[in-house]
């Protein structure tokens, strides 16, 4: 197993280099002027300035020279200040948001994480629960319901579903709200009265014992949470169901029954742990899907997370910003995939003990 984990860890730098190469390669399609935002904050106005910037930062150097510089940054010979260099956390300057990309990430990512946490855990538990239930009762009522749900769930586009939610739960009666928080909450945060331990609003509200703020956060988050959940539940349910159906046909399930175990134990102790193996494998890719879904969901509900930032930047064709955000997302995904793989190794004794 040590070998397995080491091999998996060694893949991380390969993935990182690959991901950054792809992203930087896309950036190369743009002119040097666009790319200057990697290093400068004020956008050059006249020809001369532009040339100066291109020259200073070597924006027409060969690909790999630029790539290296992008990774490590440039030291200004006069001031000694380092500019650029994603390895040092400098993702460039967002001309549409008028701030550093890293600051966008810092303010927006906790919001996305807040959303993701409230989505992932219910998604996994409910999706798996439903999937097992459906498989055990194959072709019975609950299974039919689950199948219909999984088909509708995967067919109804996120943005259509989101708009329908807005139509039903917001436009008419304002039960739930788009955006992130009400004005009075943001004023409270601004005043510093409200301590931000984690920067996740719902968690912080609970930690401050401010249930009114928690309710406000939930009123804003519930629609994106439902939207993100319903489609992922559908996928989870489908994978769990088919994996469970397959497991129930295995010989060792018959063995368990022949020992006189109750059907409940046959399912919970013998079939389900085995059926979970492919589900865990899928978890990695479903986190990738979740973060993709975040882009659209946050846009629909005007929720100020990292996905909305990416969509905004993309619709204004602000390449440097979205690439910075993409690098960051890639990093998160590489880490979460690693976690899932290691988790898998722990669950499956055949991997763990090899």
């Amino acid at each position, binding site marked *: 197993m040590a070998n397995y984990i080491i091999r998996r860890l060694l893949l991380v730098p390969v993935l990182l280099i690959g991901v950054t190469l792809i992203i930087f390669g896309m950036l190369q399609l743009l002119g040097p002027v666009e790319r200057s935002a990697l290093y400068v904050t004020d956008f050059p106005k006249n020809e001369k300035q532009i040339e100066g910037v291109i020259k200073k930062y070597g924006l027409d150097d060969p690909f790999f020279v630029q790539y290296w510089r992008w990774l490590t940054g440039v030291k200004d010979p006069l001031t000694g200040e380092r500019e650029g260099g994603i390895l040092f956390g400098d993702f460039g300057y967002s001309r549409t948001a008028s701030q550093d990309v890293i600051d966008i990430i810092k303010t927006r990512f906790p919001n996305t994480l807040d959303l993701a946490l409230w989505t992932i855990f219910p998604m996994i538990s409910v999706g798996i629960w439903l999937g097992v239930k459906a498989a055990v009762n194959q*072709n019975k009522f609950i299974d039919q319901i689950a199948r219909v749900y999984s088909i509708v769930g995967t067919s109804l586009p996120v943005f259509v579903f989101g708009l329908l939610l807005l139509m039903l739960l917001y436009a008419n009666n304002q039960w739930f709200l788009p955006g992130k928080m009400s004005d009075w909450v943001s004023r409270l945060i601004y005043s510093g009265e409200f301590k931000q331990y984690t920067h996740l609003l719902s968690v912080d509200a609970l930690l401050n014992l401010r249930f009114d703020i928690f309710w406000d956060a939930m009123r804003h988050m519930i629609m994106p949470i439902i939207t993100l959940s319903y489609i992922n539940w559908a996928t989870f349910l489908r994978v769990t169901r088919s994996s469970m159906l397959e497991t129930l*046909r*295995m*010989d*060792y399930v*018959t*063995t*368990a*029954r*022949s*020992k*006189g*175990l*109750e*059907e409940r134990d046959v399912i919970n*102790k*013998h079939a389900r*742990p*085995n059926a979970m*193996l492919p589900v865990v494998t899928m978890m990695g890719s479903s986190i990738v899907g979740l973060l993709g879904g975040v882009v659209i969901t946050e846009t629909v509900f005007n929720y100020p997370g990292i996905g909305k930032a990416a969509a905004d930047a993309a619709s204004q064709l602000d390449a440097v910003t979205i690439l910075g955000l993409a690098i960051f997302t890639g990093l998160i995904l590489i880490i979460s995939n690693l976690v899932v793989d290691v988790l898998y190794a722990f*669950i*499956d*004794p*055949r991997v763990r*003990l090899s």
Partner: protein
Amino acid sequence: MTNRLLDVKGLETHFNTPEGIVHAVNGVSFTLDEGETLGIVGESGCGKSVTMLSCLRLVPMPPGKIVAGQANYKDRDLLAISEDEIRKVRGAHIGMIFQDPMTSLNPVMTIGKQLTEPLILHLGLTEKQARNRSIELLGIVGIPRASDRLKDYPHQYSGGMRQRVMIAMALACMPDILIADEPTTALDVTIQAQIVELVIQLREELGMSIVWITHDLGVVASIANRVAVMYAGFIIEEAPVKKLYAGPSHPYTVGLLNSLPQIQVQEKKRLYSINGMPPTLYKIPHACPFAPRCPWVIERCWSENPLLFPIGDSHKVACWVDIKTGRER
């Protein structure tokens, strides 16, 4: 008169498949007495495994369906009692081992856990007692260093060892009956010999009855007291083992025995071979299912399916023809 443990009458099992209903077992009756070993022999798809799985209601339903019959264990009909009651019979009174020891053990559960399960369930032992008993059981089936190996997972055992674990598991609660469903088919000859020896030895020590399902006429000859030969979902011949091998009376049994190479014969001799192939089971035959392949076939075979009837002391056969004379019975 010894005690009758199992009395199966008119068992019929179907499978609903997209291609149609498969009549896997078509009215099978047999008995099993205390201390007896019954061999059920037949080619793949003849319904021998389904018969025994049906008795314990372990046939997957759907697509399987037990259509008719009784399976009386002592005084209870296993096909009629409640789900709860049959669970108490499985594992506790009737144990079962299967063909492929690799797929029959749960790959993500330790051997110890799988072994203690029936002990805790049926005998009400505590974890600790069950563990001690498991070590004992592994010792009985000949697994060295049993206490260390409880923590291991099935993939860390060899094929032969896994089958020993299966046997230990099936015998954990000292059942009256052991159903062995082709337990040696997936194993090598020398390992097969180990397992057969082990079962024979355990049978003597524990005095259980055995139903041994196999396609191998050799294995049956070495272990069974009585043999039932199955073909196309019917038992077509049944006799004490010596009688069957000395005087097979159904043309199919005769053909099977003759198509095996004889170990004692030195000169090269052409093998006898049965023509044709077993019928598909999509419809219930109204003729003898073996008629198309039978060298002794007579007119009556095409119109009426012979049922098992006695032809001598505890020897039964389902054939219209007395193959010794070639005349209709």
